[in-house]
């Protein structure tokens, strides 16, 4: 028997829960068909979440899932341009015409879909993005020149969390796009996802007792993002997320972290997301999205 999981038409951090619900129990026992034919748009968060699902199934020794590629030419080309199919081909049996990723002039893709497995990968990610980050964040989004450095710091710390806490590899992608639905402005988005143990299991041995019966995915996210705790005894740990929060506060940005069955967000005034969404469908590892909006003309 094959379980069909539909990729939402508009696939982003919000519709991700619908995608996650399609899997049922983890790891899924049935053969999976991930149907992306109807996809019209996917954020970097959606695309690396899709790869994370394939990775988690592979690591659980599950049968290689099928993936039907989007019907839309334009969508297929974008997925190829951001490097999705290159990695998806290793995790899914692809069905449908996959375009070659053609190199073309200036792009809104700041960082292709990139695997993060070791600290060396973090160095390479930061090196790769440094030049374009300055051009886009200052030139296009109207942030101060040194915001590019802070953006790269946020990227570096997010990627390091995979290597230090996930217990397996993960993915990162960075893109600029117009956020029509909720903001009506250009945004720069960092998306990071891994198929690892998740925040709850990572923090359980050191922090669960303190939370008592409240302990769960939501409490673990709260401990990490709001209280800045870490699984390490070293008192200097946990400052990466604190630093990211400071950067987001300054630029009216948003961070959203989904792990297990919960999603915790620091929600700026321009967004209407829930600060904490609990009892969601389970999804392996952790998924992080950092959104930096273009600055309004009066604040420039």
């Amino acid at each position, binding site marked *: 028997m094959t379980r069909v999981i539909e990729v939402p038409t508009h696939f982003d951090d919000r519709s991700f829960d619908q995608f996650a619900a399609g899997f049922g129990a983890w790891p899924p026992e049935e053969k999976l068909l991930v149907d992306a034919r109807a996809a019209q748009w996917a954020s970097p968060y959606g695309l690396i979440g899709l790869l994370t699902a394939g990775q988690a199934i592979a690591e659980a020794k599950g049968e290689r899932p099928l993936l039907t590629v989007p019907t839309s030419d334009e969508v297929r080309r974008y997925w190829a341009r951001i490097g999705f199919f290159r990695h998806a081909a290793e995790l899914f049996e692809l069905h449908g015409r996959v375009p070659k990723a053609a190199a073309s002039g200036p792009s809104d893709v700041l960082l292709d879909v990139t695997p993060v497995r070791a600290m060396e990968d*973090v160095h390479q990610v*930061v090196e790769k993005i*440094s030049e374009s980050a300055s051009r886009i964040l200052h030139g296009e989004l109207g942030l101060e020149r*040194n915001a590019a450095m*802070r953006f790269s*710091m946020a990227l570096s710390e997010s990627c390091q969390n995979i290597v230090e806490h996930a217990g397996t590899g993960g993915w990162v992608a960075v893109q600029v796009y117009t956020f029509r639905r909720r903001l009506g402005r250009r945004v720069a988005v960092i998306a990071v996802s891994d198929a690892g143990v998740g925040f709850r299991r990572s923090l359980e041995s050191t922090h669960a007792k303190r939370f008592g019966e409240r302990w769960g995915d939501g409490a673990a996210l709260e401990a990490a993002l709001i209280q800045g705790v870490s699984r390490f005894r070293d008192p200097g740990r946990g*400052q990466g997320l604190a*630093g990211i929060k*400071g950067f987001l506060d300054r630029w009216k940005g948003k961070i959203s972290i989904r792990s297990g069955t919960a999603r915790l967000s620091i929600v700026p005034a321009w967004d209407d997301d829930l600060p904490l969404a609990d009892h969601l469908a389970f999804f392996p590892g952790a998924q992080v999205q950092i959104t930096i909006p273009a600055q309004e003309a009066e604040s420039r």
Partner: protein
Amino acid sequence: MIETIRIGHLLRETASSPYRNLVTRPTGAAVRVRIEDALARSDCLTALLDFSGIELLDFSCAEEIVAKLLLAQALPQPRFVLLRGLRDDQHDAIAQVLTHHRLAVAALITGGEPMLLGWVSPDARDAFACLYRLGRGCAGDLADALGWPEPRASDALEALTRHRLVRPEGALRYPLLVA
């Protein structure tokens, strides 16, 4: 005597690569070990860490290099530590990690007065700036210059001395670069 340590050189030697970004904890820890080795071979009382040429300094590296170096100052032969060649975003990263540990360090600014990064009281900040302008001073000198009661100036100087942000010589305190 001041031992100047160029962090960019250490990074290139440590990573065996052309990277100019100080990112990840292992990189920071490796650079710190190099700094400690250099200080162990030096007789100088003051270490000047020069960050010129470094592009990005993330929080993990700020913690591993600067905070842990200062925390290690409780060891025998503690040094005075000064920073140079930092940009705004690097100031912020260092200030954050030091504040977390209730530590502070002085950073030299091109064409300006040194500034304190990290956690010190407002009085200690004022006293630090005043001492830099005076060139040296005791609690009485500071009290006169700032219009404070002497015990207040004494407390502020004591805090700066404890954080190794000024060099003591008898009752006098000196800014580090005048030492």
